[in-house]
C-alpha cells in the first residue's frame, strides 16, 4: 500500500493501467502518480497534448490514450520518476518497458539485466534495447528493456551486473 510502504496495491494501480485494446495498438505512457502534489512538468513536457494541461497544479495527471504516442519525452521530466512507457507490440512474446534509471553503471544496448518489480524483487531477465541519455534527459537516463509480455505491468526497475546488496 502506497501510504505505508510505497508499493501500490493492484487496486491502487488499476485506474492507471490502460485497457487491453489500447495496449494492443502500441506504446503508451503509464503515469504512476497517485497523490495530489503541486507539480506539473509532465504536462508541459508533452508535445502531443496527451497529458492534459492542469487546471490546478495539484491535479493528478491524466493521459489521453488516443493522443499519446508513447514517445517517452515525459519520462525524464517527471521529478518523481513515476512515468513509464509500455509497448506490448514490441514482439510476439515480449513487451518493451521504458523506465527512468539514475544509477551507474548504465547498461549497454543489447545487455541482459535483471528486471525488478515495484518492491525491488527480481522477477526475471530482460534485454536492454535502448538507452537514451542525452542533454534532454538531463542525467535521468531512460532505459528501454524487452521483457516477457506477461511482465509488462510488473517490471519497473532493472539491476545491472547482478545483485550487489
Amino acid at each position, binding site marked *: 500500500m*502506497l*501510504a*505505508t*510502504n*510505497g*508499493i*501500490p496495491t493492484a487496486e491502487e494501480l488499476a485506474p492507471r493501467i490502460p485497457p487491453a485494446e489500447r495496449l494492443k495498438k502500441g506504446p503508451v505512457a503509464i503515469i*504512476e*502518480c*497517485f*497523490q*495530489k*502534489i*503541486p*507539480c*506539473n*512538468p509532465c504536462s*508541459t*513536457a508533452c508535445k502531443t497534448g496527451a497529458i492534459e494541461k492542469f487546471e*490546478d*497544479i*495539484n491535479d493528478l495527471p491524466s493521459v489521453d490514450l488516443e493522443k499519446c504516442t508513447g514517445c517517452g519525452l515525459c519520462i525524464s*521530466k*517527471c*521529478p*518523481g*520518476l*513515476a512515468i513509464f512507457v509500455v509497448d506490448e507490440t514490441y514482439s510476439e512474446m515480449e513487451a518493451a518497458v521504458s523506465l527512468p534509471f*539514475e*544509477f*551507474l553503471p548504465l547498461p549497454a544496448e543489447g545487455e541482459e539485466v535483471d528486471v*525488478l*518489480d*515495484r*518492491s*525491488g*524483487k527480481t522477477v526475471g531477465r530482460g534485454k536492454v534495447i535502448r538507452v537514451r541519455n542525452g542533454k534532454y534527459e*538531463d*542525467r*535521468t537516463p531512460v532505459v528501454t528493456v524487452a521483457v516477457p509480455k506477461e511482465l509488462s505491468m510488473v517490471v*519497473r*526497475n532493472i539491476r545491472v551486473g547482478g545483485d*550487489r*546488496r
Partner: protein
Amino acid sequence: MKHAEIAVIGGGPAGLMAALAAAEMGAKVTLVDRNSRLGGQLVKQTHKFFGSEKEYASIRGIDIGRILATEVHKNPNIETMLNSTVVAYYPDDGVLGIEVEEKKWVKMKAERIVVATGASEKYLLFENNDLPGIYGAGAVQTLMNEHGVVPGKNVLMVGAGNIGLIVSYQLMQAGVNVKAIIDAAPSIGGYWVHASKVARLGVPILTSYTVKAAYPNEMTGALERAVIWRVDDRWQPVPGTEKVFNVDVMCIAVGLSPLAELLWQAGCKMMYVPELGGHVPVRNDNMETTVSGIYVAGDVAGVEEASSAMMEGRLAGLSAAKSLGYDDGTYEEKKAEALKELENLRSGPVGGKIRKGLAQLAS
C-alpha cells in the same frame, strides 16, 4: 559602519529569490551568507524539483542553485558577502553584527532586512544517540553530495518524510546499502513518488517503528547495531516487537525547525505552530514581521518545500523594495502573481498541514 538599503540574510532558495526580486524593482541589496558559495541547501539537492516552471520544476536543486547564484552575481544591484555570518541584531539602533571569515567583525545598518536563514534539523532521543556513525540527514548529504564521501556501508534511515526518502535514494545511488527506512508515524510523510522510488530499489519502509537503542562496536566505539521497535496508536513502544539491524550508519531525518534566533533578538512576535516546525514569526501578506522593516521568507517563516520558499522570497523582496519607494508600477501585479502561485502550491491535500499552520498564525 556598513550601510545597506536591503540586507538579505541567507543565500538559499528564499534569500536568492528575495535578493533578485528586490534588485529587479531597483533597490540596492546586500546578500549575506555564511557559506563560501550561494545556494543554501540547494547545493546538495541532486534530485529534480517539483512545482511548476516558475519554481524551476524538473530542474535539479544543484542546478537551480547555480542558475540563481549566477543571476545574483551578475546583477549590479546586488552585493554579495560570503563567509559572513549574521550573529546579532541590536534592536535599539537596528544594527546587524556580522562575523566575516571568522576574523572580522562588521556592523551593518540596513534600512530593510529580509531574514531567510532557513531551518535546523531536529534530533531524536534514544539510548546511545551520540555514537559515531549516527548522523543528521543534512550531514550525510553534505558529506556525500558536496564532498564525495560516503558515510559508511549499511544505513538505517530514521524518518520517511521527503528528506529521509530522498537521502535514502541518494545513498543507494552512491552504492551505499540502505537496510530500511523507519518512521514512527503510521503512514509515510513524504511524497509517495519518492517512497516508490526507494521501494523499487528493494528498500523496505517500516511505518509505526521507532529507534529503541543503538549499540557500539567494542573495539571502535562506533555504531554497529540498531534496535527498533513498533509503536502503538498512542505512540507507545510495544515490547517484544524489536528488530535488529547491523548497520554502521544511522541517519536521522525527523524534521526541521526554523532558525529564528535573529527574529527573537529583534523582538518579532513569535508563535508556536507545530505544523510549521516550531516557533515562527507572525507576519502580514507582504512577509513583514511585527517589527517594521524586518521581512521573512522560506523555512525560517515555517518549514515547507523549496518551491514555496522561493515564492515567499520573491514576495518579501518585492515588498521590501516597494516600502523603500521602488516601484515602477508593476509591484501590485507581481505581488498578486506571487501570492497566487503560493496559494496554488499550498492548495492541494499535501498542503493541508501548511494551510492549517498558517491559519493558526493569522488568527
